[in-house]
């Protein structure tokens, strides 16, 4: 059975111990406050920790695509540009994950993954479509989308098919495909928003 057709359920997100959750938050908040006053060492440490956390977060939800790495880098740049807006009296995670969600959805909309796969070559696309061992199954959030939406999103935004090709593949009209992609993006965005971070 193709991974695209597998009706995977969204597994519950890995729970983290709440004390380590708030300890992380407090540490990041402190490091960011220190970075805001110009401490390079603390800033390097903060970015390093955040990059791992964000990579894990996106890989679990969206899959281990190469574009996740691009996303992480974009997010780090955004964190750098937005660092003056962080208020150390507030929790760090809502601030960080607002940027993460926005940048991740933005990257998907722009088809970053598609471009990346096209750069690697068609072989990658073929492997991704064909094999059950490929990375497609690893994105819990994408797997949690209804089958029709998931297929449309995966084919167009992640595997690089044009709308016409994807529509043909799914035996639906091109406009129906576009509606499904739009709905899938919206649903993904809501799922990311609703999820507590």
């Amino acid at each position, binding site marked *: 059975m193709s991974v695209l057709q597998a009706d995977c359920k969204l597994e519950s997100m890995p729970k983290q111990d709440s004390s380590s959750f708030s300890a992380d938050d407090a540490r990041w908040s402190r490091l960011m406050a220190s970075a805001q006053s*110009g401490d390079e060492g603390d*800033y390097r440490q903060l970015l390093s920790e955040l*990059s791992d956390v964000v990579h894990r977060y996106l890989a679990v939800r969206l899959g281990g695509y190469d574009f996740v790495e691009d996303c992480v*880098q974009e997010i780090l740049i*955004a964190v750098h540009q937005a660092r*003056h807006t962080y208020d150390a009296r507030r929790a760090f995670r809502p601030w960080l994950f607002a*940027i993460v969600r*926005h940048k991740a959805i933005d990257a998907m909309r722009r088809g970053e993954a598609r471009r990346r796969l096209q750069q690697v070559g068609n072989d990658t696309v073929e492997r991704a479509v064909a094999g059950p061992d490929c990375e497609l199954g690893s994105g819990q959030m994408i797997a949690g989308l209804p089958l029709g939406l998931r297929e449309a999103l995966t084919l167009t935004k992640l595997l690089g098919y044009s709308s016409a090709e994807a529509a043909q593949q799914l035996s639906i009209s091109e406009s129906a495909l576009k509606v499904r992609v739009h709905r899938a993006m919206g649903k993904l965005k809501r799922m990311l928003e609703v999820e507590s971070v």
Partner: protein
Amino acid sequence: MRTREQLLDSLASELTPVVRPPAPGLLCSTWLVASAAYVVLLTWLLGPIRPVALQQLLTVPRFSLEMLVGTVAACALAALAFRSAVPGSLSRGFAWGALGVLLLWLANFVLGIAIPTLEPSMLGKRDHCYLETFLYALPPLVGALYWQQRLYPMSPRRAAMLAGLAAGMLPALYMQIACMYEPVHILAFHVGPALLVAAVAPLMLLTWQKALAIGD
């Protein structure tokens, strides 16, 4: 493609101390007070105010409620505009609440076509109220856009549109008192230009960003 380590090194080496801007709440309140004072003063200086407006405000409960809902909508939209420029400070619930109050305010005028709040009359009519509404909103809009850009709006066009809506709302609301009262007139000549300001705001932002890019 640079590696993540290279990026981290580059970002850390570029680090400069930053000054945190005022909290969005404080910015919003300051902007609201300054903009409202400017709109009221300018409107008062450049034309007559409907003579019976204050009396109507005090004696017609539905009109008072209408003004109250409009004021709440203006404040909520302003908060929305400023909060949308700070990551993580805007909740979906607040955004829907603010838009809900705005719709409630607008719905009152639609209802007013059938059952007007006040007896429709030409009393207090200003000749160019539509132009006034549009033009008076522009300086507050520029102020809001300036502050938004100093923060970090993740969707700059949407944030600009909200700033336009908040800025347009102020003269539109005050025209309820300054200009003639007639629901269709209000929708077409007061609310219409306010919505136009919201539509123009992203274009203004784009022009501004282009001008800055050329300047650099």
